[in-house]
C-alpha cells in the first residue's frame, strides 16, 4: 500500500468513526425485545452467592447447580443483595463446556404459598394469633398484611397465605380471602421426595400412583402441589416442579381445540381434542367455570406428551355449547343425599345440587348428611346447580377442620 493510499484509508476510517459516533447516540433506547432463548429455566433455593463487592457477578449456587452470573446477566433486583436461603427464578444457557450461564436471575423472598380452607382462627379482632389453613398452623402477627377484597376470612372460607418459615412455624406475611377452590394448593421448596411422599418447605404431602408429576424433582427446586385434604393429611393430586427444559421429559405442553370425543362414562379416560389423544386421569383438573365439558366444547389442554398421547394435568373449558348459566361456588352442610349411591340430587346448604358421573367428588367416603361440603358448578335456570366438583370435609361441624 502506498503512503498516499494509507492516508486516504485513515481519512475514510475517521469519516466512518465520526458518522457512527454521531448517529449512534441518536437511536432511541430500545426496550427489551422478546425473551432471550434459554436452555433451562427453573426456580430454586439459593445456597451460595458471590461475596461482596463482586456481587452479583460470580458463581451462584441455586438448587445445587452452579450458575455463572456475568456482567451481562440481568439480575433483579440487585438491591438488597440476595442471600443464601432466598429463592430465585433463573433462565440459563448451557455453555459448550457444560457450565450454566445465567441470562436472567430474579431473586425473591422464600415465601411459601398456601391456598386452603380456614378451619380455625384466633379471637383477636385483628386476627393476630394462630390460624389453621389447609390443615396447617399459620401464625399471623401484627406485621401480617390482611386483605378481604377477594372474600371474607372466616371459618369455612378460603385464604391464600404467603408465609415465611421460622423453625417449624409458618409466619404469615400476607393473607387474603379467596373464593372456595376444589383443591388445596401448596408452593414451596422440595426438601425430600420419594414414591410415597414429598416434603415442600417442611410440609409433608402423601403421593400415590395416581399423582401426576410434571418435571424432574430435585432437592432445592421449587414445586407447586395441588392436594386434597384427607383426614389430617394432604394427598398430592398434581405436582409441578418449577423447571422448564425444552426438549426434556414431561416438558410442558399446551394447546386449545374442540372436544371431539369423551370417555364413555365420566371424564376419566381417553379424550380426543383437536384430533389428538388426551388422557384424563382421576387427578386431572377439569375446570368447567366457562361451561360444562361436552363434545363440541372448546378447551385448553395443559400437560405433556407421552408417545402419541398427551397426559393432561389440566383441561380448562373455554366455551361450551351446553346450556348453562353462571358458575357458582358455596359451602354448607349436606342436608340430603340420593337414596342410593352419590349420583343424583343432593341438597347442600339448602340448595339443590345435581351430581353426575362427570362430577369430581373429593372424600366420597365421608359424604353423609350433616357433613360439610363445598360445591362448584353451573347454575341452571331452574335453580339447580350442576356440580362440577364437590369437596366433602373430613369431619362434620361448622366448617372444614
Amino acid at each position, binding site marked *: 500500500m502506498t503512503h498516499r493510499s494509507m492516508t486516504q484509508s485513515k481519512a475514510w476510517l475517521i469519516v466512518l468513526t465520526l458518522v457512527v459516533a454521531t448517529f449512534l447516540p441518536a437511536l432511541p433506547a430500545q426496550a427489551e425485545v422478546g425473551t432471550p432463548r434459554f436452555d433451562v429455566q427453573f426456580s430454586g433455593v439459593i445456597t451460595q452467592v458471590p461475596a461482596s463487592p463482586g456481587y452479583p457477578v460470580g458463581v451462584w449456587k441455586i438448587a445445587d447447580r452452579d450458575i455463572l452470573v456475568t456482567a451481562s446477566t440481568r439480575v433483579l433486583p440487585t438491591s438488597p443483595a440476595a442471600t443464601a436461603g432466598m429463592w430465585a427464578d433463573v433462565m440459563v444457557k448451557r455453555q459448550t463446556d457444560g457450565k450454566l450461564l445465567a441470562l436472567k436471575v430474579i431473586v425473591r423472598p422464600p415465601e411459601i404459598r398456601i391456598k386452603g380452607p380456614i378451619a380455625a382462627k384466633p379471637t383477636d379482632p385483628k386476627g393476630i394469633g394462630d390460624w389453621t389453613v389447609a390443615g396447617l398452623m399459620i401464625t399471623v402477627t401484627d406485621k401480617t398484611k390482611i386483605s378481604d377484597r377477594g372474600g371474607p376470612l372466616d371459618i369455612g372460607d378460603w385464604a*391464600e397465605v404467603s408465609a415465611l418459615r421460622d423453625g417449624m412455624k409458618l409466619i404469615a406475611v400476607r393473607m387474603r380471602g379467596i373464593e372456595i377452590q376444589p383443591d388445596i394448593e401448596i408452593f414451596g421448596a422440595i426438601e425430600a421426595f420419594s414414591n410415597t411422599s414429598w416434603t415442600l418447605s417442611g410440609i409433608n404431602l402423601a403421593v400415590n400412583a395416581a399423582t401426576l408429576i410434571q418435571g424432574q424433582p430435585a432437592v432445592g427446586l421449587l414445586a407447586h402441589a395441588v392436594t386434597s385434604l384427607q383426614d389430617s393429611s394432604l394427598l398430592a393430586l398434581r405436582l409441578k416442579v418449577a423447571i422448564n427444559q425444552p426438549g426434556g421429559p414431561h416438558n410442558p405442553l399446551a394447546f386449545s381445540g374442540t372436544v371431539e370425543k369423551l370417555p364413555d362414562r365420566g371424564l376419566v379416560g381417553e379424550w380426543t381434542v383437536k384430533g389428538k389423544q388426551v388422557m384424563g386421569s382421576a387427578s386431572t383438573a377439569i375446570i368447567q367455570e366457562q361451561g360444562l365439558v361436552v363434545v363440541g366444547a372448546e378447551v385448553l389442554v395443559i400437560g405433556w406428551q407421552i408417545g402419541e398421547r398427551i397426559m393432561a394435568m*389440566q383441561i380448562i373449558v373455554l366455551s361450551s355449547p351446553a346450556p348453562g348459566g353462571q358458575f357458582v361456588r358455596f359451602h354448607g352442610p349436606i342436608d340430603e343425599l340420593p337414596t342410593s349411591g352419590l349420583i343424583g340430587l343432593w341438597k347442600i346448604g339448602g340448595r339443590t345440587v345435581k351430581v353426575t358421573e362427570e362430577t369430581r367428588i373429593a372424600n366420597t367416603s365421608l359424604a353423609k348428611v350433616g357433613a360439610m361440603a363445598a360445591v362448584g358448578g353451573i347454575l341452571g335456570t331452574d335453580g339447580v346447580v350442576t356440580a362440577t366438583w364437590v369437596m366433602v370435609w373430613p369431619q362434620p361441624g361448622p366448617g372444614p377442620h
Partner: protein
Amino acid sequence: MPRRWTAVLIALIALSATVLSPLTVVSVSGAADVSGQARNAAPIACAELITNGGFEAQGTGWTQSSAGGFSLISTFYPRTGSWGAYLGGANNADDRLSQQIIVPSNPISVSLTAWWVIATEEPGAGFDRMTISLLQPNGALLQDLFTVDSSATVNLWDQAEADLTQYAGQTIVLRFRATTNASSPTDFYVDDISVVACPPAKRIYLPIVLREGG
C-alpha cells in the same frame, strides 16, 4: 482523492450528521478528544416524570377508579416501602390508575419501568389481564405498551419496560387498567413506576487535520 477534498468531505459529513440528527443538537458545555470523536463531559441530568411512582405518598399524583369501589393504593403487597398499587382482586373488576405526564421536547430517551406481580385463582388461562397504556389527555388510546394476564407466574415481581421517546414534546396519560371476569379473580400489584427522560449528551467536534507522513 485530493487531500483538500477529503478534509472538506469529513467536515461536511460531521456537520450534516450533527444537524440532521435532531436529538444530538444541544448546547451543553463539553470537551472532545484529539481524535476528533466527541465525548461527554458533564453528567447527563435525567428527569423523573412520574410523581409518587412508589406510592409512598399514597394517592398523590394518581387518578384512580375501581368498579368495586376499592382504593387502589394499598399496603397489602408493596415491592418496596409501605405502599403499592393493588388492582383487580375481585370478580368483574375494572380498575384504573393513571397519571398525566408532560414529556420534554428534546430528550434523547424516555423510558418507562414498572414492577408488577400477580396472584390469581384462575386455573392457568389468561382470562384476567392488566394493560399498561398511553392515552391522550382526552382519553383516546395512543398505544398499549404491555399486557400481563392471569397465566403469568404468580408471586414473582418482574419489570415491565417500554420506550416512550416517540412521545417527546407531548402530554400523555400513563394508565394501568386491570379487568377480571366473573369468577376466579386475579390480583395485579404494581409498584415503583418510573418514567425517566434523559437529555442528549453534549457533543463538540474539533476540526480534523490530516497531515501527510504523520
